[in-house]
C-alpha cells in the first residue's frame, strides 16, 4: 500500500492552492473522496485528498499551511514522493441513482475532491451542479474545469469573483437528491442538515496512522464514534456529530 509516486508537475494555480501531478507506479482505480497519506520531512505523514486520478496519474491540490505542505510545494518534477494509500472511503459515485441530481458543495481547499467526484458522476451520465466558495477572486481555481462538467456557481467572501458571500448562501436545494460536500467545519455544519434526501460530507481530522489503528482521528457519532481515516473521510451526514 506504500507507493512511490513520481512528480510530473507542481505549480501554484491560485492563491493558497498548489496543484501536484504525479505518476502512479502502476495502473489502479482510485475512488473520488479517498486520500493519500504523504511522507515528506516531518515525522508523521500528511493526509491529502485525491483531486483527480487517471489510469496512471494522480493529482493533489493543497494549501501551504505548515512544514509538511511547505515541503510538498518544493517537490520538483522527477523526484519521488512516498505515499500510503489510497486510504479511506470516498464518495459513493457508483451507487448514486442515474436519475438523481447531485449537488456538490465545496469550500476552499475542500473543493479538490469534489472535482474528481463530479467528473466520475458526469462520466456515468448523472446530472450534477456545483457551488464552490472561496475567500477572494485570487484564490479561485478549477472554475472552468467544473463548468465544463455542469452548472457551477462560484462565491467569494469579498465579492471579487462570482457571487459575494458564503457558499452556503448560494445553495439551491430545490430538486436536488444527493449532496456531496467538503470544506471547512463551519460550512459542513451548515449543510449537514439541508433538506436533501442523501447527504455525504467529507471531514478533516488530525491523523496519526491513517489506517484505523491509532484512534487519533475519531469523530463523535450517534452510535459512539467513527474513525475519519477508515470509516470516512466521507460520511453520511447523519453519521457524524460535528
Amino acid at each position: 500500500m506504500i507507493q512511490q509516486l513520481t512528480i510530473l508537475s507542481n505549480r501554484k494555480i491560485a492563491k493558497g492552492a498548489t496543484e501536484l501531478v504525479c505518476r502512479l507506479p502502476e495502473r489502479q482505480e482510485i475512488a473520488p473522496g479517498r486520500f493519500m497519506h504523504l511522507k515528506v520531512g516531518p515525522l508523521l505523514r500528511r493526509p491529502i485528498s485525491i483531486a483527480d486520478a487517471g489510469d496512471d496519474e494522480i493529482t493533489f491540490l493543497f494549501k501551504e499551511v505548515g512544514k509538511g505542505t511547505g515541503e510538498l510545494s518544493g517537490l520538483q518534477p522527477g523526484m519521488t514522493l512516498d505515499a500510503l494509500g489510497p486510504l479511506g472511503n470516498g464518495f459513493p459515485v457508483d451507487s448514486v441513482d442515474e436519475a438523481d441530481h447531485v449537488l456538490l458543495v465545496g469550500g476552499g481547499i475542500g473543493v479538490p475532491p469534489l472535482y474528481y467526484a463530479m467528473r466520475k458522476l458526469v462520466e456515468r451520465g448523472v446530472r450534477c451542479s456545483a457551488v464552490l466558495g472561496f475567500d477572494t477572486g485570487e484564490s479561485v481555481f478549477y472554475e472552468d474545469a467544473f463548468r465544463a462538467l455542469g452548472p457551477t456557481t462560484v462565491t467569494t467572501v469579498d465579492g471579487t469573483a462570482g457571487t459575494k458571500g458564503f457558499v452556503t448562501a448560494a445553495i439551491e436545494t430545490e430538486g436536488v437528491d444527493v449532496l456531496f460536500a467538503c470544506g471547512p467545519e463551519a460550512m459542513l455544519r451548515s449543510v449537514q442538515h439541508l433538506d436533501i434526501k442523501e447527504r455525504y460530507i467529507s471531514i478533516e481530522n488530525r491523523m496519526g496512522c491513517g489506517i484505523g489503528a491509532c484512534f487519533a482521528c475519531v469523530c463523535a457519532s450517534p452510535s459512539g464514534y467513527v474513525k475519519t481515516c477508515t470509516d470516512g473521510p466521507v460520511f453520511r451526514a447523519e453519521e457524524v456529530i460535528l
Partner: protein
Amino acid sequence: MNRLNVELPGLSLKNPIMPASGCFGFGEEFAGLYDLSVLGGIMIKAATRDERFGNKTPRVAESGMGMLNAIGLQNPGVEAILGEKLPFLSNYDTEIIANVAGSTPEEYVEVARMISASPVVKALELNISCPNVKCGGLQFGTDPVMASELTRRVKAVSEKPVYVKLSPNVTSIVEMATAVEAAGADGLTMINTLIGMRIDVRTGQPILANRIGGLSGPSIKPVAVRMIHDVSREVDIPIIGMGGVMEVDDVLEMIYAGASAVAVGTANFVNPYICKEIIEALPGRMDELGIEHIMDIRGRAHGHLHRA
C-alpha cells in the same frame, strides 16, 4: 539456527520485535498488510474495565522528530476485547501481551484478572504510565509505593507473568524499577511517553484538546536508551525496550543498553510495514556487525550480562 529467538517470562518470542501498545490497535488493520505471525509478539492496546471514548480531538500534534498524542485510552472495554479482539489474534502464531489500564487499583485488578485468564494472552503489561487520562495512569507510575502496591495486587490475581510499564517522567527510574521488581514484577517495559505540550501560535492555546500529551518517536530515543541502560544494571528481570525505534540500528542500541526485546510504536504510523521490515533486516545487520545471536549483545554497553 534461530539467531533471533528470545525466551522471557511467559513469552517465547521467535524474534525480539513487537509493536508497542496503542500503536497497533488489536492488529486488525495490519493483518491486511502482512502476516502477523512474523512478529515476535504484539502488545495490544490498553484495556480498561468499561468502554472508553477517550479524549476530545485534536489528539495528535507534532514537534521536531516527535509525536504528541492524547488518545486517552480509548478502547472497547475488557469484555469486548476478550470477546471480539482476542479470538482474531488467536489466528496468528505470535505472543500476545495485554496492556492493562484503569482509574483505580480495583479497576486494574479486575481487568488483569479477566484478561490474564484468556489463553490467547501470554503476559500482561501493566500500564501505570499513561499521561493522557485524568485519573489513574500516571500517578501510579511516578510514586514507587503506589506502583509496587499495584504490582502486588495485580500479581496476586494474574494467571500470567506481569510486565510493568514504566514512565520516564520521574526523577529516578531506577527507584521505580527496583520497587516494582521487589513487588513481584516479572519484567519491565520502558519507556512510555514523556509529557509534552504544543501551543498553536495563532490561537495561543494548546493544540491538543487534552492540553498535554505523550511525546513519542525519535525525539525520546536517547532518553529511553539511557533509562534502559541504567535500569538494566540494577534489576534482574528482563526489559522490553521502546521509545523512538525507527530502524534496525535503534533495536540494537536498546539491546546493547540492556533490553531483551524491543517494541516499536510511533514508527508503525509512518510505515505500517516497519516491524516486518526490521525483523527482515536484523540478520543481515547482525552479519555486518559480527553478532551471532541477538542476545549475545544484550547489555554489552555496560559490560556485565544479566540472567532473566
